[in-house]
Protein backbone atom coordinates (compact mmCIF):
# COMPACT_ATOMS: atom_id res chain seq x y z
CA UNK A 1 0.00 0.00 0.00
CA UNK A 2 1.54 3.30 -1.06
CA UNK A 3 1.64 6.35 1.21
CA UNK A 4 -0.79 9.18 0.40
CA UNK A 5 0.80 12.03 -1.56
CA UNK A 6 2.19 14.76 0.68
CA UNK A 7 0.56 18.07 -0.22
CA UNK A 8 2.37 21.37 -0.06
CA UNK A 9 0.83 23.86 2.33
CA UNK A 10 0.09 27.57 2.17
CA UNK A 11 -1.20 29.28 5.30
CA UNK A 12 -3.53 32.29 5.08
CA UNK A 13 -3.33 34.19 8.37
CA UNK A 14 -5.18 37.34 7.37
CA UNK A 15 -8.38 37.28 9.47
CA UNK A 16 -8.00 40.84 10.71
CA UNK A 17 -10.64 42.15 13.06
CA UNK A 18 -10.59 45.32 10.98
CA UNK A 19 -12.89 44.96 7.99
CA UNK A 20 -10.60 46.91 5.65
CA UNK A 21 -7.75 44.46 6.19
CA UNK A 22 -9.69 41.16 6.58
CA UNK A 23 -9.16 38.91 3.57
CA UNK A 24 -12.39 38.23 1.68
CA UNK A 25 -13.36 34.68 0.70
CA UNK A 26 -13.07 35.59 -2.99
CA UNK A 27 -9.36 36.33 -2.50
CA UNK A 28 -8.79 32.97 -0.78
CA UNK A 29 -10.45 31.25 -3.73
CA UNK A 30 -8.20 33.10 -6.18
CA UNK A 31 -5.16 32.00 -4.17
CA UNK A 32 -6.36 28.37 -4.16
CA UNK A 33 -6.94 28.50 -7.90
CA UNK A 34 -3.48 29.94 -8.55
CA UNK A 35 -1.84 27.16 -6.54
CA UNK A 36 -3.70 24.21 -8.03
CA UNK A 37 -4.90 20.93 -6.54
CA UNK A 38 -1.53 19.80 -5.23
CA UNK A 39 -1.63 22.44 -2.54
CA UNK A 40 -3.41 22.54 0.78
CA UNK A 41 -4.58 26.07 1.59
CA UNK A 42 -5.05 26.37 5.35
CA UNK A 43 -7.04 29.44 6.36
CA UNK A 44 -6.51 30.53 9.97
CA UNK A 45 -9.81 31.67 11.47
CA UNK A 46 -8.34 33.17 14.65
CA UNK A 47 -7.99 36.96 14.53
CA UNK A 48 -4.69 38.25 13.18
CA UNK A 49 -3.22 41.57 14.29
CA UNK A 50 -3.05 43.89 11.29
CA UNK A 51 -1.99 47.07 13.09
CA UNK A 52 1.56 48.30 12.67
CA UNK A 53 3.79 45.53 11.36
CA UNK A 54 1.58 42.72 12.72
CA UNK A 55 1.42 40.86 16.02
CA UNK A 56 2.98 37.90 17.78
CA UNK A 57 0.87 35.20 16.13
CA UNK A 58 -2.18 33.30 17.38
CA UNK A 59 -1.83 29.70 18.63
CA UNK A 60 -3.91 28.59 15.62
CA UNK A 61 -1.56 30.37 13.21
CA UNK A 62 1.48 28.84 14.87
CA UNK A 63 -0.07 25.39 14.68
CA UNK A 64 -0.97 25.84 11.01
CA UNK A 65 2.54 27.04 10.20
CA UNK A 66 4.14 23.72 11.15
CA UNK A 67 5.15 22.16 7.85
CA UNK A 68 4.01 25.14 5.78
CA UNK A 69 5.91 26.16 2.68
CA UNK A 70 4.23 29.55 2.14
CA UNK A 71 2.81 31.91 4.77
CA UNK A 72 0.59 34.94 4.09
CA UNK A 73 0.12 37.26 7.05
CA UNK A 74 0.53 40.73 8.50
CA UNK A 75 4.28 40.56 8.93
CA UNK A 76 5.71 37.21 10.01
CA UNK A 77 5.12 36.57 13.74
CA UNK A 78 8.14 35.11 15.51
CA UNK A 79 6.10 32.08 16.63
CA UNK A 80 5.08 31.38 13.06
CA UNK A 81 8.67 31.66 11.83
CA UNK A 82 9.84 29.26 14.54
CA UNK A 83 7.04 26.76 13.88
CA UNK A 84 7.69 26.73 10.13
CA UNK A 85 11.47 26.57 10.40
CA UNK A 86 12.89 24.13 7.90
CA UNK A 87 9.84 24.05 5.64
CA UNK A 88 8.97 27.70 5.06
CA UNK A 89 10.31 28.98 1.75
CA UNK A 90 8.33 32.18 1.18
CA UNK A 91 6.43 34.55 3.48
CA UNK A 92 4.34 37.47 2.25
CA UNK A 93 3.23 40.38 4.40
CA UNK A 94 0.01 42.26 3.62
CA UNK A 95 1.62 45.26 5.30
CA UNK A 96 4.21 47.56 3.80
CA UNK A 97 6.20 47.78 7.04
CA UNK A 98 8.01 44.58 8.00
CA UNK A 99 10.36 46.00 10.64
CA UNK A 100 8.99 43.73 13.39
CA UNK A 101 9.77 40.62 11.31
CA UNK A 102 13.36 41.41 10.40
CA UNK A 103 15.03 40.10 13.55
CA UNK A 104 13.75 36.54 13.14
CA UNK A 105 13.72 36.49 9.33
CA UNK A 106 17.29 37.64 8.75
CA UNK A 107 19.54 34.73 7.89
CA UNK A 108 16.60 32.31 7.69
CA UNK A 109 16.89 31.85 3.95
CA UNK A 110 13.14 32.47 3.64
CA UNK A 111 12.00 34.84 0.89
CA UNK A 112 10.00 37.74 2.30
CA UNK A 113 7.77 39.97 0.19
CA UNK A 114 5.69 42.93 1.32
CA UNK A 115 2.84 45.12 0.04
CA UNK A 116 4.62 48.44 -0.34
CA UNK A 117 3.26 49.42 -3.75
CA UNK A 118 -0.26 48.26 -2.95
CA UNK A 119 -0.70 51.11 -0.46
CA UNK A 120 0.93 53.78 -2.60
CA UNK A 121 -2.11 55.19 -4.37
CA UNK A 122 -4.46 55.67 -1.39
CA UNK A 123 -1.57 57.13 0.59
CA UNK A 124 -0.82 59.55 -2.24
CA UNK A 125 -4.49 60.60 -2.26
CA UNK A 126 -4.31 61.26 1.47
CA UNK A 127 -1.12 63.31 1.08
CA UNK A 128 -2.67 65.51 -1.61
CA UNK A 129 -5.81 66.01 0.52
CA UNK A 130 -3.71 66.91 3.56
CA UNK A 131 -1.68 69.45 1.59
CA UNK A 132 -4.85 71.07 0.28
CA UNK A 133 -6.33 71.16 3.79
CA UNK A 134 -3.62 73.57 4.86
CA UNK A 135 -2.70 75.41 1.67
CA UNK A 136 -6.34 76.32 0.95
CA UNK A 137 -7.03 77.26 4.56
CA UNK A 138 -9.58 74.55 5.29
CA UNK A 139 -8.24 74.28 8.83
CA UNK A 140 -9.01 77.96 9.42
CA UNK A 141 -12.46 77.59 7.85
CA UNK A 142 -13.24 74.68 10.14
CA UNK A 143 -12.15 76.71 13.18
CA UNK A 144 -14.38 79.61 12.10
CA UNK A 145 -17.32 77.28 11.52
CA UNK A 146 -16.97 75.88 15.04
CA UNK A 147 -17.18 79.45 16.33
CA UNK A 148 -20.24 80.15 14.15
CA UNK A 149 -18.27 82.95 12.53
CA UNK A 150 -18.71 84.07 8.89
CA UNK A 151 -14.98 84.61 8.38
CA UNK A 152 -14.96 85.98 4.85
CA UNK A 153 -12.61 88.83 5.70
CA UNK A 154 -10.02 86.42 7.06
CA UNK A 155 -9.54 85.14 3.55
CA UNK A 156 -10.29 88.20 1.40
CA UNK A 157 -8.33 90.78 3.35
CA UNK A 158 -5.06 88.94 3.60
CA UNK A 159 -5.23 87.92 7.27
CA UNK A 160 -4.79 84.33 6.16
CA UNK A 161 -2.38 83.93 3.25
CA UNK A 162 -3.81 81.73 0.50
CA UNK A 163 -1.27 80.01 -1.66
CA UNK A 164 -1.40 81.20 -5.24
CA UNK A 165 0.96 78.68 -6.77
CA UNK A 166 1.48 74.97 -6.44
CA UNK A 167 3.83 74.10 -3.58
CA UNK A 168 7.15 72.42 -4.12
CA UNK A 169 6.91 68.98 -2.55
CA UNK A 170 9.97 67.23 -1.18
CA UNK A 171 9.43 63.54 -0.65
CA UNK A 172 11.62 61.28 1.42
CA UNK A 173 11.28 57.70 0.31
CA UNK A 174 13.50 54.78 -0.48
CA UNK A 175 13.90 53.72 -4.06
CA UNK A 176 12.98 55.34 -7.31
CA UNK A 177 11.14 52.36 -8.72
CA UNK A 178 7.44 51.80 -9.30
CA UNK A 179 6.07 51.89 -5.70
CA UNK A 180 8.11 54.92 -4.69
CA UNK A 181 7.30 56.77 -7.86
CA UNK A 182 3.56 56.23 -7.37
CA UNK A 183 3.62 58.14 -4.10
CA UNK A 184 5.01 61.24 -5.76
CA UNK A 185 3.23 61.00 -9.10
CA UNK A 186 -0.13 62.05 -7.64
CA UNK A 187 1.17 65.36 -6.19
CA UNK A 188 2.97 66.00 -9.47
CA UNK A 189 -0.25 65.54 -11.42
CA UNK A 190 -1.72 68.27 -9.23
CA UNK A 191 1.03 70.60 -10.39
CA UNK A 192 3.30 70.16 -7.38
CA UNK A 193 7.01 70.11 -8.11
CA UNK A 194 9.97 67.86 -7.44
CA UNK A 195 10.68 64.58 -5.77
CA UNK A 196 13.77 62.99 -4.34
CA UNK A 197 14.70 59.50 -3.34
CA UNK A 198 17.51 57.13 -2.78
CA UNK A 199 18.19 54.83 -5.70
CA UNK A 200 18.00 51.14 -4.97
CA UNK A 201 18.63 48.08 -7.06
CA UNK A 202 15.56 46.20 -8.31
CA UNK A 203 14.52 43.70 -5.66
CA UNK A 204 13.92 40.40 -7.34
CA UNK A 205 14.52 36.82 -6.40
CA UNK A 206 17.70 35.53 -7.93
Amino acid at each position, binding site marked *: MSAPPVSRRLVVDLASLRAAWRIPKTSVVQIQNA*LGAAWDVMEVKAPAVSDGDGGSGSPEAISAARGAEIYLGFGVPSGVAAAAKGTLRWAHSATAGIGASLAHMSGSGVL*LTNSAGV*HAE*PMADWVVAAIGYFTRGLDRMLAAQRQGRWAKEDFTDGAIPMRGRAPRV*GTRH*EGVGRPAARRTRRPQRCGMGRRVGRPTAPRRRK
Partner: protein
Amino acid sequence: MEWVGGLADLPRLAGGSDVLVIAAPHTAETVGAVDRRVLERLPHQALVVNVSRGSLLDEAALLELLELRRLRGAALDVFATEPLPAGHPFWSHARVLVAPHVSAVSGQFWERETALIVENIRSYLAGAPLTNLVDLEAGY
Protein backbone atom coordinates in the same frame (compact mmCIF):
# COMPACT_ATOMS: atom_id res chain seq x y z
CA MET B 1 12.51 63.87 -11.40
CA GLU B 2 14.42 66.97 -10.42
CA TRP B 3 17.20 65.30 -8.47
CA VAL B 4 18.02 62.22 -6.43
CA GLY B 5 19.92 62.13 -3.18
CA GLY B 6 20.47 60.17 0.01
CA LEU B 7 20.03 60.83 3.72
CA ALA B 8 22.81 63.39 3.78
CA ASP B 9 20.82 65.49 1.29
CA LEU B 10 17.76 65.84 3.50
CA PRO B 11 18.62 69.37 4.69
CA ARG B 12 19.07 70.43 1.06
CA LEU B 13 15.72 68.88 0.20
CA ALA B 14 14.02 70.60 3.14
CA GLY B 15 15.51 73.96 2.23
CA GLY B 16 13.78 73.94 -1.15
CA SER B 17 10.43 72.39 -0.18
CA ASP B 18 7.15 74.03 0.77
CA VAL B 19 5.94 70.60 1.80
CA LEU B 20 8.05 67.78 3.23
CA VAL B 21 6.40 64.38 2.78
CA ILE B 22 7.92 61.53 4.79
CA ALA B 23 7.24 58.19 3.10
CA ALA B 24 10.39 56.18 3.87
CA PRO B 25 10.31 52.83 5.65
CA HIS B 26 11.40 52.41 9.26
CA THR B 27 14.95 51.05 9.22
CA ALA B 28 18.01 51.46 11.44
CA GLU B 29 19.18 54.07 8.96
CA THR B 30 15.98 56.15 8.81
CA VAL B 31 15.03 56.31 12.50
CA GLY B 32 15.22 59.96 13.54
CA ALA B 33 16.17 61.02 9.99
CA VAL B 34 13.84 64.03 9.97
CA ASP B 35 15.38 65.72 12.96
CA ARG B 36 15.47 69.30 14.21
CA ARG B 37 18.26 70.16 11.78
CA VAL B 38 16.14 69.11 8.81
CA LEU B 39 12.96 70.75 10.10
CA GLU B 40 14.74 74.03 10.73
CA ARG B 41 15.85 74.13 7.11
CA LEU B 42 12.25 74.17 5.87
CA PRO B 43 11.12 77.54 4.52
CA HIS B 44 8.87 79.76 6.63
CA GLN B 45 5.27 78.43 6.68
CA ALA B 46 6.16 75.05 5.21
CA LEU B 47 4.11 71.90 5.82
CA VAL B 48 5.20 68.51 7.14
CA VAL B 49 3.30 65.37 6.13
CA ASN B 50 4.16 61.98 7.63
CA VAL B 51 2.67 58.76 6.25
CA SER B 52 5.66 56.60 7.14
CA ARG B 53 6.39 55.78 10.78
CA GLY B 54 6.49 58.16 13.73
CA SER B 55 9.99 57.01 14.57
CA LEU B 56 11.44 58.90 11.59
CA LEU B 57 10.30 62.33 12.80
CA ASP B 58 11.45 64.42 15.77
CA GLU B 59 7.96 65.18 17.09
CA ALA B 60 9.17 67.48 19.87
CA ALA B 61 11.10 69.66 17.41
CA LEU B 62 8.11 69.71 15.07
CA LEU B 63 5.83 70.87 17.87
CA GLU B 64 8.29 73.56 18.91
CA LEU B 65 8.58 74.94 15.36
CA LEU B 66 4.78 74.93 15.04
CA GLU B 67 4.50 76.87 18.31
CA LEU B 68 7.04 79.38 17.02
CA ARG B 69 4.91 79.69 13.86
CA ARG B 70 7.89 78.76 11.74
CA LEU B 71 5.79 76.02 10.16
CA ARG B 72 2.30 76.38 8.73
CA GLY B 73 1.07 72.98 9.85
CA ALA B 74 1.58 69.23 10.01
CA ALA B 75 -0.54 66.36 8.72
CA LEU B 76 0.38 63.26 10.67
CA ASP B 77 -0.97 59.78 10.01
CA VAL B 78 1.66 58.05 12.14
CA PHE B 79 3.17 58.74 15.55
CA ALA B 80 6.02 57.58 17.74
CA THR B 81 3.41 56.11 20.10
CA GLU B 82 0.15 54.71 18.70
CA PRO B 83 -2.59 55.26 19.55
CA LEU B 84 -1.55 58.85 20.22
CA PRO B 85 -1.70 59.18 24.03
CA ALA B 86 -4.52 61.16 25.62
CA GLY B 87 -3.42 64.69 26.43
CA HIS B 88 -0.68 64.74 23.79
CA PRO B 89 -0.24 68.32 22.50
CA PHE B 90 -0.92 67.20 18.92
CA TRP B 91 -4.54 66.40 19.82
CA SER B 92 -5.48 69.99 20.52
CA HIS B 93 -3.09 71.83 18.23
CA ALA B 94 -5.02 73.96 15.73
CA ARG B 95 -2.46 73.42 12.98
CA VAL B 96 -1.93 69.69 13.36
CA LEU B 97 -4.12 67.23 11.49
CA VAL B 98 -4.18 63.99 13.48
CA ALA B 99 -5.11 60.83 11.58
CA PRO B 100 -5.24 57.37 13.21
CA HIS B 101 -2.81 55.60 10.84
CA VAL B 102 -5.38 55.16 8.10
CA SER B 103 -3.89 56.84 5.02
CA ALA B 104 -3.54 53.46 3.31
CA VAL B 105 -7.15 52.39 3.84
CA SER B 106 -8.87 51.82 0.51
CA GLY B 107 -11.85 49.93 -0.81
CA GLN B 108 -9.59 48.55 -3.53
CA PHE B 109 -6.98 47.12 -1.15
CA TRP B 110 -7.85 43.44 -1.48
CA GLU B 111 -8.27 43.71 -5.23
CA ARG B 112 -4.71 45.04 -5.51
CA GLU B 113 -3.30 42.83 -2.78
CA THR B 114 -4.78 39.65 -4.23
CA ALA B 115 -3.41 40.51 -7.66
CA LEU B 116 0.06 40.88 -6.14
CA ILE B 117 -0.19 37.60 -4.21
CA VAL B 118 -1.48 35.65 -7.21
CA GLU B 119 1.22 37.14 -9.45
CA ASN B 120 3.84 36.10 -6.92
CA ILE B 121 2.38 32.61 -6.50
CA ARG B 122 2.69 32.08 -10.25
CA SER B 123 6.26 33.40 -10.17
CA TYR B 124 7.12 31.21 -7.17
CA LEU B 125 5.78 28.07 -8.82
CA ALA B 126 7.69 28.92 -12.00
CA GLY B 127 10.90 29.66 -10.12
CA ALA B 128 10.78 33.23 -11.39
CA PRO B 129 11.68 36.41 -9.47
CA LEU B 130 9.16 37.63 -6.89
CA THR B 131 7.78 41.16 -6.90
CA ASN B 132 8.31 43.27 -3.76
CA LEU B 133 11.06 41.07 -2.42
CA VAL B 134 12.36 42.53 0.84
CA ASP B 135 16.09 43.06 1.27
CA LEU B 136 16.46 41.69 4.80
CA GLU B 137 19.79 43.41 5.26
CA ALA B 138 18.53 46.83 4.16
CA GLY B 139 15.31 46.35 6.13
CA TYR B 140 12.75 47.16 3.44
